[in-house]
């Protein structure tokens, strides 16, 4: 690739415009957000259309924009579970959690935890997970940033990209707060949608349809009885390029239970028959993590409080599902085309590997259509910027709110003035942004999408059981909720970290040296493929563990069920028209707050 070394002004121009527009909007709206309430939940006055676009904009991260395409290219069919479950997790949120939580009315999950159990102590415990999940989720965003900048400026070290993007977004959040973010997020959804769909339509018109490109990959049953379709490739369509050795074979790529889910079993030297049940287990565990995890993401739930009422919250969820569902059809197409026409990415690793297929694929049509290729690549780069900037901003706001609003405002200095809290918000943003950059610089060898999956697994084992059980079971006690959430969440966190550390130990670059202490783990994984799968995808045991503990411990501490539990359950479940919420607030205040 001779072009790779040169520097493309079109790509730079599109990316620069995205960044400048984002910052400009942030600064502009910073002027209009003055009160503390504006800062934290955008004054709770956002319409359904804006809010749905904003939630979608925040949710479609670097994993969705770049990671899915990279993972489909690398692993084939199995990777499709990611986009599907990212979108469908919202259904679970809608069915079981969105309505009741909105009726209860609180700024954040820690607010809910405190209100539901009348316990400021529980709030402190719950706040930890905003930070745990948040940091796990920012790492892949930072990798997206480093990968994109290394693509735009060939030769730029990965960590410089991470540091530059981290600094820009942190500054933006510190100055704008969430009011700015709502508008920015909404606009960024539409940038991402445009940036993923337009290049796909152009590429498909050049290289033939989605199905036609898939049919170039023969499955095992195609080989057994060659169907006519494979031979009907028109003479005008470019033939696909030869695959390098590192690429998975056609049969394992296009069929279920391919390289992603059989990795542990293959490493252990198991036969195809022996590894299939393990693959099924892997798939189920992944599904549980992604579907339950969506409901437990701290930066998504907070937006349900920005709806004017419960009906609007439900309508918003419906629109979010449509907006993100349409989006998620596109990234796998990049993966399929990448396998056929950009196979050299299989040979590369880190920020030069398949995670950049979305950015690089449009360049291929430059030979035929000249500048159009550069423009399209510029558009996908702009989309990538929108992706990691919006999700990182959203996470930064949630994590900073947790630190400024909870840790500082309620624990350290309850008597602080609103002005002091506003100042603290800015300092906390800078602190968290700094830590995120350091973590992001460490994870270059890990796949973007894989890391996001882990963040979901931790959310699924901590916040999801907490929310689900607190909403639907009146017998829950604070002790039960805390025990289940902490045990499930920390187990998932620990096993995900262990898997990451042992994967980083395999890296041939500097990270391999840094994490070399964990290389012994890899021998252990080879001996015990089942344990490896359970550690890599912990949701299938950690979610039931958390829920089980909640039930057992709550039964044991039955006496501590909050006294006014019937009233609390009524507020959670009764239609808002009955006005129970107002009554409940008055009672709480009457009790001497």
């Amino acid at each position, binding site marked *: 690739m001779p072009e790779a070394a040169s520097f493309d002004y079109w790509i730079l121009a599109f990316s620069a415009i995205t960044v400048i527009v984002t910052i400009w909007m942030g600064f502009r709206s910073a002027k209009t957000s003055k009160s503390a309430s504006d800062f934290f939940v955008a004054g709770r006055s956002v319409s359904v259309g804006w809010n749905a676009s904003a939630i979608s904009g925040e949710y479609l991260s670097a994993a969705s924009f770049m990671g899915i395409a990279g993972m489909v290219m690398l692993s084939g069919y199995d990777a499709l579970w990611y986009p599907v479950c990212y979108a469908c997790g919202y259904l679970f949120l809608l069915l079981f959690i969105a309505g009741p939580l909105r009726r209860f009315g609180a700024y954040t999950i820690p607010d809910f935890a405190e209100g539901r159990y009348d316990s400021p102590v529980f709030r402190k415990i719950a706040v930890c997970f905003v930070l745990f999940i948040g940091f796990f989720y920012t790492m892949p965003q930072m990798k997206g940033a480093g990968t994109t900048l290394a693509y735009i400026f060939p030769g730029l070290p990965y960590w410089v990209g991470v540091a530059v993007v981290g600094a820009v977004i942190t500054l933006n959040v510190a100055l704008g707060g969430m009011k700015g973010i709502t508008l920015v997020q909404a606009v960024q959804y539409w940038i991402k949608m445009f940036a993923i769909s337009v290049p796909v339509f152009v590429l498909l018109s050049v290289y033939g349809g989605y199905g036609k490109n898939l*049919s170039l990959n023969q499955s095992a049953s195609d080989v057994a009885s060659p169907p006519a379709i494979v031979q009907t490739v028109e003479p005008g369509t470019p033939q696909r390029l030869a695959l390098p050795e590192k690429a998975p074979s056609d049969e394992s790529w*296009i069929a279920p239970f391919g390289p992603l889910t059989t990795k542990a079993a293959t490493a252990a030297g198991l036969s195809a028959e022996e590894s299939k049940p393990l693959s099924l287990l892997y798939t189920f565990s992944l599904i549980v993590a992604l579907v339950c995890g969506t409901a437990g993401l701290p930066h998504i739930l907070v937006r349900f409080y920005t709806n004017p009422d419960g009906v609007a919250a439900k309508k918003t969820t419906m629109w979010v599902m449509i907006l993100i569902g349409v989006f998620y059809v596109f990234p796998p197409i990049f993966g399929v085309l990448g396998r056929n026409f950009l196979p050299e990415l299989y040979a590369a690793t880190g920020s030069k590997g398949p995670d950049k297929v979305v950015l690089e694929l449009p360049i291929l049509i430059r030979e035929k259509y000249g500048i159009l290729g550069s423009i399209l690549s510029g558009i996908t780069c702009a989309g990538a910027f929108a992706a990691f900037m919006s999700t990182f901003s959203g996470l930064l706001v949630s994590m900073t709110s947790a630190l400024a609003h909870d840790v500082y405002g309620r624990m350290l200095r309850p008597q602080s003035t609103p002005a002091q809290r506003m100042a603290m918000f800015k300092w906390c943003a800078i602190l968290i942004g700094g830590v995120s950059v350091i973590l992001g610089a460490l994870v270059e060898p890990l796949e973007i999408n894989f890391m996001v999956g882990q963040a979901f697994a931790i959310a699924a084992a901590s916040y999801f059981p907490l929310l689900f059980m607190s909403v639907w079971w009146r017998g829950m006690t604070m002790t039960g909720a805390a025990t289940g959430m902490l045990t499930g969440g920390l187990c998932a966190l620990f096993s995900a970290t262990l898997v990451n550390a042992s994967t980083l130990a395999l890296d041939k670059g500097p990270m391999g040296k840094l994490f070399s202490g964990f290389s012994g783990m890899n021998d252990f994984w080879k001996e015990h493929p089942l344990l490896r799968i359970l550690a890599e995808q912990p949701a299938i045991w950690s979610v039931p563990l958390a829920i089980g503990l909640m039930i057992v411990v709550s039964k044991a501490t039955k006496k501590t069920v909050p006294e006014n539990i019937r009233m609390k359950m009524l507020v959670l*479940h*009764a*239609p808002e028209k009955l006005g129970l919420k107002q009554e409940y607030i008055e009672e709480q205040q009457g009790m001497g707050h």
Partner: protein
Amino acid sequence: MSHQNPDHDDFIHSEEFLHHLMRRQLRLSIACAAAFLILLFGLPLANYFAPELMALRVGGFTLTWLILGVLFFPFVWIIARIFITRSMALEEAEVLLAAEGNAKRKA
């Protein structure tokens, strides 16, 4: 403190109403979730037990790729749409029921 608990023994605040409320809501949610989970967990099982059927070619796609990569999304929208319509109707009915119940108790 005097204005609270004035009529906390009315129907809206009763155990009966809460039970009724939660049971109906949960039943709706579980029915929708079941429709979703059957497809979600059924597809890997179909891949496992009927790999040849799932590998059939439909316009170049394998059947299972077509279901997971494209058709799954509209299916979920339909479930969401049904849930939202039903749950709004449910809320309306509950408001009516609460008013009726309160009137009955007072009478």
